């Protein structure tokens, strides 16, 4: 009964579903070009200071970076599974996967916190006395590191909040067919954050 009603509403809103998704993709493009500009900056400075970039990269914690990569990839899987579960009508399973995604997103941020704290503890942060003594290339590397992983971390935080909000929507109003497109778009955002990390990881951690 409810599934018939859902199908009817779904059909009626079909063009809206495509439109909502397209709107989300357009937003994601602005995000891609925002990070894209930073990647171009990175590429230009790296071309000028290749050796210093190699040296600085060796100071980053590669195991934590790898762990965070695996965490984000796995959280991308769980959000995709959550959408698929909701599509099939298994709301509890969908919520479980969504919760797992949120927990992994938090895990990513906790790792980032420890990583940044260790760096700051060693006196490596923008404008630190230690870094000011280093070469221009190293200063540029760590400035880019903090800005780009910082902005990315902010996106992870926003993603966690958005997915948490969608979780409460599914919790409060389980039969609302509008939940699905919200979850799908939230998932798109989450995957984009994953894609950006897929490039950040090798460019910062793996060039030593």
């Amino acid at each position, binding site marked *: 009964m409810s599934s018939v009603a859902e199908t009817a509403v779904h059909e009626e809103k079909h063009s809206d579903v495509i439109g909502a998704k397209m709107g989300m993709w357009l937003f994601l493009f602005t995000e891609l070009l925002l990070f894209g500009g930073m990647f171009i900056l990175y590429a230009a400075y790296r071309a000028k200071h290749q050796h210093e970039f190699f040296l600085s990269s060796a100071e980053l914690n590669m195991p934590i970076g790898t762990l965070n990569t695996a965490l984000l990839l796995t959280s991308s899987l769980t959000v995709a599974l959550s959408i698929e579960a909701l599509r099939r009508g298994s709301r509890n399973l969908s919520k479980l996967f969504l919760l797992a995604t949120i927990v992994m997103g938090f895990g990513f941020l906790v790792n980032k916190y420890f990583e940044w704290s260790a760096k700051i503890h060693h006196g490596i942060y923008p404008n630190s006395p230690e870094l000011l003594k280093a070469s221009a290339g190293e200063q540029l590397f760590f400035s880019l590191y903090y800005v780009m992983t910082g902005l990315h971390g902010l996106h992870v935080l926003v993603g966690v909040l958005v997915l948490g909000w969608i979780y409460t929507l599914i919790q409060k109003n389980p039969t609302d067919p509008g939940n699905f497109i919200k979850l799908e778009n939230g*998932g798109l955002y989450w995957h984009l954050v994953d894609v950006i990390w897929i490039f950040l990881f090798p460019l910062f951690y793996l060039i030593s």
Partner: protein
Amino acid sequence: MEHHQAEHSVGYGTYVLVWLGLLVFTGLTVSVSGINLEALTVTVALLIAGFKTFLVMNYFMHLKFEPILFRLMVFVVIITFAIFLSLTFLDVLFR
């Protein structure tokens, strides 16, 4: 249209396979970084990252199952980015 919608559905198994592929390529990019390939290092890292992105966008983000317009839009963004990147490097490399 509803049939079309049903075709969009990707099985749980496909997602798990894509995830395994992504983990394998992450392992690959980490182990390759230990080998000194000189100028090729970046190329290999970017190729692997590019392929991982292809997997995430096509399967996790469903691009493969969306109308062609979505893929065209992504294509335009990639071309735009490539133009900005190459114009910047015309300056950086030949200054």
